[in-house]
C-alpha cells in the first residue's frame, strides 16, 4: 500500500488530542493569537472524543468564589491531603483561580447547570462538585474549539512528536496517520499542546472476554499523552501514582453523587460499618499527619481516597464481603431515585444496562461495590503526567522555566492528563489548563522562541517507515501460515495488549495480586517490558484499524515502563489502597516527601530518576500556629 504524505506547514499551535484539555487550548488560543494558525489533530471525532465522550452528570471542580464558597487555596489543600501531600501546588492554585471563569462560560454556551431554585446558585453535589445535565457537554465544547481552529483533522492517530533538527530539545510538530485513508500526516508547528489522554487497559482488567470494554476510564485512553512525551525525551512526574477506583461492581458507575448528594453509605456483607475499624492500623502505616479521624470529623478534612480504598480491600480480604452501597433508603424519595439513575445515564450508561439486565433496582436492593484495576492518568484523584513549568507569579524556581504549562521540551505544552502533579482538575480544570497552555504558547511564539526550526526529510521519512511497518510485516509473513492469528513471526496488537496487561498486573501491583509489588517484582517487570519492546517491533496489522491498535499499544507499553521505573524509585508505600510496596510498607516522609521526576533518554532508552522538592502553600495563620507549637 502506498501512503500519500500530507503536509500541513507553518502551524503556530498544534493541539494533539481534543478532549477537554485540547478543546480548551484550541478555543483560547484564538483570543491570544488572532492571526495564528491553529490546528487540531484528533484520533477520533472531536464531537465525541476523550473521556467526556458519553457525557458527564457533574462538574467536579468548581470553586464558587462568586458566592463565597471556596478560595483556590482551599482546593489546593483538599487535593494535597487526598494525594497524601504529593501534588504541584503552584499548578493547582493556578488552575483553581481560573476554573470558575471556564464554568461560567460553559453556562453561556448552553450547558445546562442545575441551580438551587431559592438562591439561584449552582446546585452542589459536594463541596467541589456541581450538578449538570451534561449529555452534550463534549459536543458543546467541541463547537467552541471548532470555531477557533483553522482546521480540525479528525481520525488522525498521532504517533510521534517531531523535534527540531536545528536546536536541541525543541518541538517542531507531530506526525501520524489517518485511520480511514492510510495517509501519512506531517504537522510542522512552532508549538504543540499535548491534550492526549491517560491510560486504561495497561493493567489486567477484572472483566473477561467481551466485558473488557467496560473499563472505568475510556478504552480509547491509550496513554498517548505519556507515550508521545516520554518518547520525545520530556521529563515525567508522579508516574507511580496510579489510581484504583471504588465503584459499583461490574459497571464502574460513579459513586460521587451517591455519597455526596444522595447520602448513601457503605457497609460490609454483615451490614456493619467497617471503614473506621481499619483506621488505627492504617494510621500506623501513614502517620497521624495523613489520617486523623478526629481532625477529619471536626474540620471536615476528607479521608484520602486511597485510604478508604484500603479499608474496603482489607475488609473484603478479611472475608466480610461483599461491600454494599446502602441505597434502599435514599431511593424511596422519587426525586433522589431520579437523580441516581440520571447520574448513570448521563455518564456511565453501562451501569444502568447492567442493573436492568440483573434486575437490580437500588430501591429494593443495595448494589455491590468493588475496587477496580489500576489506571494511569492525571486529572481525577491522581496526578501522573509531564513535568511542567508553572505560572511566573506563583511558582518557586524549581517549578518555573519561562512559560506556564510548558514541558521540559521547549515549545511543548500540556493540558489535562498530560500535566503531572495536578489531580482533581477533572473536566473543567483540564479545559482551564488548556486555556493556560494556549496563552503561554502564543507568548512563546511572540517572544521569538520558535524561530529557525528545521525538520529534516530524514526525520520525516524515518517516522513514515516506522509508522506503517506493522502493515508491511503482516503482508510479508501472513502467508507463512495457513490461516488464523498464530504466527511465529508476528503478534497482533490484541495479543500484545494481553501480554502487557498480564505482566503489569502480576509484577507492578494489579488487582489479582491485591495491588502488591516490591523491588524484586518491579525489576522482573522492567526486564519483561524490555523483551516485550523487542517484540513490539514485530507487531503486525492486517488493516488500518489494527494499525491504530498497534500504536495505542506502543504508547501503553511506554507508559507502563515509566510507571514501573517510578514505582521502583519511590521506596515507600505512599498511597495504600492504590498500591503497596511490600518491601517498604510505610509512608516515609523523611526520605520521600518529594515529587519523583524521570527522563528517558530517547537515544539509549535509559531512565534517569530524580527527586524534586515538594512545595506547599502556607498562609500567615498556619505559620503562626506552627510557631506557637
Amino acid at each position, binding site marked *: 500500500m502506498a501512503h500519500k504524505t500530507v503536509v500541513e506547514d507553518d502551524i503556530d499551535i498544534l493541539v494533539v488530542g481534543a478532549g477537554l484539555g485540547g478543546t480548551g487550548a484550541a478555543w483560547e488560543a484564538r483570543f491570544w493569537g488572532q492571526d495564528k494558525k491553529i490546528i487540531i489533530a484528533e484520533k477520533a471525532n472531536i464531537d465525541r472524543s476523550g473521556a467526556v465522550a*458519553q457525557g458527564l452528570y457533574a462538574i467536579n471542580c468548581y470553586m464558587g468564589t462568586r458566592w463565597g464558597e471556596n478560595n483556590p487555596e482551599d482546593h489546593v489543600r483538599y487535593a494535597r491531603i487526598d494525594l497524601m501531600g504529593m501534588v504541584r501546588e503552584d499548578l493547582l492554585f493556578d488552575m483553581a483561580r*481560573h476554573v470558575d*471563569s471556564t464554568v461560567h462560560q460553559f453556562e453561556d454556551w448552553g450547558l*445546562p447547570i442545575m441551580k438551587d431554585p431559592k438562591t439561584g446558585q449552582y446546585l452542589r453535589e459536594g463541596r467541589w462538585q456541581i450538578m449538570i445535565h451534561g449529555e452534550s457537554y463534549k459536543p458543546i465544547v467541541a463547537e467552541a474549539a471548532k470555531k477557533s481552529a483553522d482546521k480540525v483533522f479528525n481520525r488522525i492517530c498521532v504517533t510521534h512528536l517531531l523535534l527540531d533538527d536545528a536546536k536541541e530539545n525543541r518541538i517542531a510538530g507531530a506526525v501520524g496517520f489517518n485511520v480511514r485513508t492510510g495517509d501519512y500526516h506531517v504537522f510542522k508547528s512552532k508549538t504543540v499542546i499535548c491534550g492526549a489522554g491517560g491510560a486504561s487497559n495497561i493493567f489486567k482488567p477484572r472483566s473477561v*472476554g467481551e466485558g473488557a470494554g467496560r473499563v472505568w476510564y475510556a478504552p480509547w485512553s491509550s496513554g498517548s499523552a505519556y507515550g508521545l512525551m516520554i518518547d520525545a525525551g520530556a521529563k515525567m512526574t508522579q508516574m507511580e501514582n496510579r489510581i484504583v477506583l471504588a465503584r459499583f461492581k461490574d459497571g464502574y458507575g460513579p459513586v460521587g453523587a451517591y455519597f455526596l448528594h444522595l447520602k448513601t453509605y457503605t457497609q460490609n456483607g454483615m451490614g456493619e460499618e467497617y471503614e473506621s475499624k481499619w483506621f488505627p492500623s492504617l494510621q500506623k502505616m501513614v502517620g497521624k499527619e495523613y489520617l486523623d479521624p478526629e481532625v477529619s470529623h471536626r474540620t471536615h478534612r476528607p479521608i484520602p481516597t486511597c485510604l478508604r480504598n484500603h479499608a474496603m480491600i482489607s475488609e473484603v480480604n478479611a472475608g466480610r464481603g461483599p461491600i454494599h452501597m446502602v441505597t434502599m433508603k435514599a431511593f424511596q424519595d422519587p426525586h433522589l431515585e431520579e437523580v441516581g439513575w440520571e447520574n448513570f445515564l448521563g455518564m456511565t450508561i453501562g451501569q444502568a444496562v447492567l442493573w*436492568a439486565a440483573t434486575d437490580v433496582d437500588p430501591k429494593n436492593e443495595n448494589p455491590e461495590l468493588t475496587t477496580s484495576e489500576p489506571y494511569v492518568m492525571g486529572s481525577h484523584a491522581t496526578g501522573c503526567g509531564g513535568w511542567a513549568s508553572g*505560572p511566573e507569579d*506563583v511558582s518557586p524556581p524549581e517549578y518555573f522555566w519561562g512559560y506556564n504549562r510548558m514541558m521540559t521540551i521547549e515549545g511543548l505544552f500540556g493540558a489535562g492528563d498530560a500535566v503531572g502533579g495536578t489531580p482533581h482538575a477533572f473536566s473543567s480544570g483540564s479545559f482551564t489548563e488548556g486555556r493556560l497552555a494556549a496563552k503561554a504558547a502564543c507568548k512563546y511564539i511572540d517572544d521569538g522562541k520558535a524561530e529557525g526550526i528545521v525538520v529534516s526529510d530524514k526525520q520525516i521519512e524515518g517516522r513514515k517507515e516506522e509508522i506503517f511497518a506493522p502493515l508491511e510485516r503482516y503482508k510479508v509473513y501472513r502467508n507463512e501460515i495457513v490461516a488464523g492469528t498464530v504466527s511465529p513471526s508476528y503478534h497482533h496488537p490484541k495479543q500484545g495488549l494481553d501480554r502487557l496487561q498480564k505482566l503489569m498486573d502480576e509484577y507492578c501491583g494489579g488487582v489479582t495480586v491485591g495491588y502488591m509489588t516490591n523491588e524484586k517484582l518491579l525489576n522482573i517487570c522492567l526486564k519483561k517490558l524490555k523483551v516485550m519492546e523487542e517484540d513490539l517491533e514485530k507487531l503486525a496489522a492486517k488493516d488500518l484499524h489494527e494499525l491504530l491498535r498497534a500504536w495505542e499499544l506502543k504508547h501503553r507499553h511506554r507508559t507502563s515502563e515509566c510507571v514501573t521505573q517510578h514505582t521502583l524509585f519511590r521506596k515507600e508505600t505512599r498511597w495504600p489502597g492504590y498500591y503497596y510496596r511490600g518491601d517498604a510498607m510505610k509512608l516515609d516522609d523523611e526520605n520521600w516527601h518529594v515529587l519523583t521526576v524521570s527522563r528517558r533518554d530517547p537515544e539509549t532508552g535509559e531512565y534517569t530518576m530524580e527527586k524534586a522538592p515538594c512545595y506547599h502553600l502556607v*498562609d500567615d495563620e498556619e505559620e503562626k500556629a506552627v510557631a506557637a507549637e
Partner: protein
Amino acid sequence: MPTFVYMTSCDGCGHCVDICPSDIMHIDPTHRRAYNIEPDMCWECYSCVKACPQNAIDARGYADFAPLGHSVRVRREEEKGTISWRIKFRDGTEKNFLSPITTKPWGSGTPQLKDVPGPTDEMRDSQHLYSEPKYIRMDEGEVHTLESNGLKMKQGVYY
C-alpha cells in the same frame, strides 16, 4: 454493553462509523451495513446509538456478566434540546427519564473569538485569560494571587 446493529433497520449511512470514539463501528463489505467489529473495546458510550438516524443500533449487556432480556433505549433530539431514556429490566419493570441537553438553540451559544477585539499588551502581561477578570466572579473582583490571599510557597513538610 457492546452495541449491535439490526440488519433490517440499518441503511449503511455510516453516521456511527463517523462518530465512534473507539473506531469500532465499521461497514460490513458483504451486507453494506454497519456492525461492531471489536465489542471488547466498546465502552457502551452510546455515541453511535444516539447518532443513528434509523434507530438501528442497540446495546446488549456484556456477555461476561449481563443476562439477556433487558434494554436501555435512547432518543437524543437537538431541535428539542432533550434526551429521553427508557430502561427495561429483565423482569419487565420499566423506567423513563427525560433530561435537557442544552439551554440554547443547538449550536448558537458558543462565541466566535476571531471576532472579538484582540488582547492589549497589558492583558498579555497579566494573569488574565479571555473574559477575565469578569468571568471569575461575575463582578469586578480580580484574579487571586499568592499575595492577595496571604499565601507563601514553602519547601518541605509543611501543611
